[in-house]
């Protein structure tokens, strides 16, 4: 089964996904709070398009929070209906899965196809955390695809393409800007796995600054161009506060799987700005230490960062977690060093059942309340935290054991005799 030919497996997986998208599932899933957030919800996108068509500025209300680029795309080139939506969302996932396979090949420096290609495509296309948000037509699907494309371009050393794709991804979701640092570091080196043989980053700090500087400028230019295009398309600056601003000020407290909404529901108003700042800065802290610790393998730093952001970002959905889970397929060398894969999987099993259940008890049956759902999002946070901690642990331990195997560290101990104490 695992050695299935990629040329057969990939099209059949995509065809299966397309068939699913044509069932009645999307209409029931699109309102689900786990699968899409106010920033990615399909009904809100339709509402914005409707307002736009009828000459009302969609950004004058509080409902529409999608990028003007999506607005102009769907109101001109590509009218949004049942069929185009099914095709477009499935195509986006297919593209993302293909990019993931390309990243795998670049990391392994493969030119020929391998049996694992199909498995990696399946890990993306059959991952329920990816599948369900796509069926719900959440625009997070596009964000994931764009990020994976950017990573793929970075693996191939194509700077302009990487930065442009990341700029588009950032434009759709401001949080993606945090991926810039590991992506640039990846651009400057190779995607080949150095987890087992850690080494200092091949360039000194001044060199990095010197080489990355033009990239930063280029990225800023792309961002400015996109912002200008968005302003022209939507006819004003109103979109900035409604889309990017929402990420920083959390105006819409519709429940989601993340940790922000409940906290800010309970918050007294005069503490709000302070804690918004704390929560946002907390997110911005991660790229640097992860990039320093995994300087030998920036792709792994980026992978760990996807997990961190999926846990802590302001409007997360299952799609963000899905990206982290599916990307795990790229790093088989870490599996042996994971400490708690089975319990993590069990916590994920529990909370993926508890989330919809408590959501139903609170908002459907009316027998529960917000605390029920909040409790299940905390369990979800634990599940994600376990996964991220285990990924970071396994990535670092792979380095220590790899060094021991090579005989670098004293050489006295045999490879299986190694154990690491956690500080």
């Amino acid at each position: 089964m695992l050695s299935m030919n990629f040329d057969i497996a990939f099209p059949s997986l995509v065809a299966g996904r397309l068939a699913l998208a044509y069932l009645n599932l999307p209409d029931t899933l699109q309102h689900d709070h786990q699968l899409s957030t106010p920033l990615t919800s399909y009904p809100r996108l339709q509402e914005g398009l409707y307002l736009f068509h009828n000459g009302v500025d969609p950004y004058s209300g509080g409902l529409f929070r999608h990028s003007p680029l999506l607005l102009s795309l769907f109101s001109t080139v590509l009218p949004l209906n049942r069929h185009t939506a099914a095709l477009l969302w499935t195509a986006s996932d297919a593209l993302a899965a293909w990019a993931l396979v390309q990243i795998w090949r670049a990391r392994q420096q493969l030119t020929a196809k391998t049996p694992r290609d199909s498995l990696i495509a399946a890990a993306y296309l059959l991952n329920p955390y990816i599948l369900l948000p796509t069926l719900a037509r959440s625009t997070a699907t596009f964000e994931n695809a764009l990020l994976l494309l950017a990573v793929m371009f970075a693996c191939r050393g194509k700077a302009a393409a990487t930065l442009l794709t990341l700029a588009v991804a950032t434009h759709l979701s401001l949080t993606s800007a945090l991926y810039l640092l590991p992506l640039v570091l990846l651009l400057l080196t190779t995607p080949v796995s150095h987890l087992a043989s850690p080494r200092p980053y091949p360039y000194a700090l001044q060199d990095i600054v010197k080489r990355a500087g033009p990239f930063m400028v280029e990225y800023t230019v792309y961002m400015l161009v996109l912002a200008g295009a968005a302003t022209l398309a939507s006819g004003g600056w109103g979109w900035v506060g409604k889309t990017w601003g929402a990420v920083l000020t959390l105006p819409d407290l519709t429940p989601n799987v993340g940790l922000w909404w409940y906290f800010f529901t309970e918050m007294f108003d005069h503490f709000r700005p302070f804690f918004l700042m704390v929560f946002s800065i907390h997110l911005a802290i991660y790229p640097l230490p992860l990039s320093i610790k995994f300087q030998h393998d920036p792709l792994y730093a980026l992978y760990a960062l996807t997990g961190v952001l999926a846990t802590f970002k302001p409007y997360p959905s299952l799609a963000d977690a899905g990206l982290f889970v599916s990307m795990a397929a790229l790093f088989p060398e870490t599996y042996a060093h994971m400490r708690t894969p089975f319990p993590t999987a069990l916590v994920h099993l529990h909370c993926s059942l508890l989330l919809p259940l408590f959501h139903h008890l609170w908002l459907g049956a009316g027998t529960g309340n917000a605390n029920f759902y909040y409790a299940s999002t905390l369990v979800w946070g634990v599940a994600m935290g376990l996964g991220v901690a285990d990924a970071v642990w396994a990535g670092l331990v792979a380095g220590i054991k790899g060094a021991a195997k090579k005989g670098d560290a004293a050489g006295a101990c045999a490879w299986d005799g190694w154990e690491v104490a956690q500080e």
Partner: protein
Amino acid sequence: MPPRILRNILAKLKGRGDKNLTRIQRRRALADLAWRTYPRLQLLLFAIGYAWLLTIPSTLHGQRTYIDENALQPGQVNTYWNWADVHRADRYLEQLESMRDRNASSHETATFISNEFRKLGIPASTQDYAFSTTSGTVSGTNAYAVLSSPRASGTEAMVISASRLSLTGEGDGTLNLRGIATVLSLAAYLKGYSLWAKDLVFVVSDGYLDGMQAWISSYHGVTQGNLVAEPLQLSSGVIWTALNIDYPGHSFSHLGVFFEGLNGRLPNQDLINSFQVISRFTGGVPVLVYDHFDQSEFPDRVPDFVPKWLPQGMRRNEATQEYAYRAQNVMRHIGYQARGRASGVHGLLHQFRIDAITLFAVPAQGPHGFHAIGRVVESTLRTLNNLLERLHASFFFYLLVGPATFMKIGAFLPAPVLVGTAMLVGGMGAWAAARWARQGRAQGQAEKREEGRDVPAARWIERPRPVAPALSVIVYTHALGIALFCLCTWPGILAGGNIVATLLFASVALAAGGGSLLARAPAGSTQAPSWMILKSFNLCLASTVISVTSVLNFSLAATLAVFMGLPLSLSAPSRSAAARLTKFTLYALLALGWLLFVPGEAAQALRNWEVLRVWFAPFVCIVYTPLVLQAGVVCLLSP
């Protein structure tokens, strides 16, 4: 400096040598402890879990009920329902009885009732409906009337309903004529008061459950594939609360409260408590849970539900009687809730977030009649009229063990969760056991004897644990469950009698047994045996199902804990083929026995799914049966 004792303890905990070394040693010791003690821990958790289930009816648990919502103020009003209204109810009853005697059609009766509402000056209408199910078509006509609130905009409403058939024997054909007469007479009476802050909607639904299902679905604009219902002519606001009146007998001695809704949803306890207080103090009618008589009312009589085989002394013991009484209530509750059944017409309203109960006038020679039930309903409606927001303050998760005694969720939920945890421990233990194999025991012992020094008696070797075979068995059995469910919804399969049921049983069991081929390990493989991995996954899945269900439907979780807890933990292959087959057959009987032993139950569950969307039938076919069949497959695999 801390005192020496403290320092000694700390030193013992932290160790004296290298900090990291101690940490590793401590972690190893803990892992070792967990590994050595997990079977005992599992047994302990099972013992506590099952023992807890048994103590649920005991007086160890339970507390008095109380009113939580201050706005309710039950029993604080004067009631004005009087003999003139009773007389009016008697006249309605006469007309209804004459219609019954001349076998009037259901459409004729509904038209009569809606005409009577109109004569009172209340807008009224009828609704025709028809359900098509695998066992035939059910059709009828509902009558309803909407009395607009004189004091408010009509954004909220209360429902007073009576079904044509009483809940006696789950709608066995007993007519609820006095219930309908009460509703009609109440409509006439309540119209005379200007204090209503919510619309009053009077519904006389046809049949037992089907009429109300058609009416409430149409009211909320919900369509259902197999239901053809006339759209409602009149509408009102959001329905918050509803009282369903069930009065089948000539007179009554007690009012019983029925509260379980579809899919195990319960109404807010404040509703039951308010009714209980009002009935007792305004109406002077004692309240029962269901129609179970409280033995404290009859101190001289040994109640029927105390087992006959108990010694006389124990049968007369008060504690035994109390336990038996509570157990009877709990078992009845589990019977309704676990199967997702509504215990009366009120239960259909729960799916739309309406808190509703049925007041059941327990048939007796006396002393109560229309006078008492009218006052109780009037006062209860006045109480509900006070609500400023939906009922939310009191409990939604509770066990009502007596009319005024209940258990909070914390007192009963741990029982199934502990059983689930025991299974989880077993599953994780099996996962760890699959990884490690002992090798060279004999060799090790020989060495020990020869050299006379401490050589480890056995060497643990690590085995790879392929998950794909076990996962494919799991996917296969659940797919089989879906196929089984689709087969059951074919007309005539469940009604086909013993032969069809036996054939279905045999084919599904055979197909499940065939699933063991998916996990057959190649001969001489050094991998972990696939039965261990399958057992681990099976236990973890079943444990998750039990724990997660427990917050939705306690009774179902408790039933699953009994049927799956210990049996699934005991699955293991045997050396002899006969023993393996016997074990598999036992598991197949546990998984699919319902096909053979309770075909009526199965047909009823399926009908409930088709008409009322009760997910018990698909749950059993798609979740329960496959999980137990997986344990059967575990027994079939090579040890």
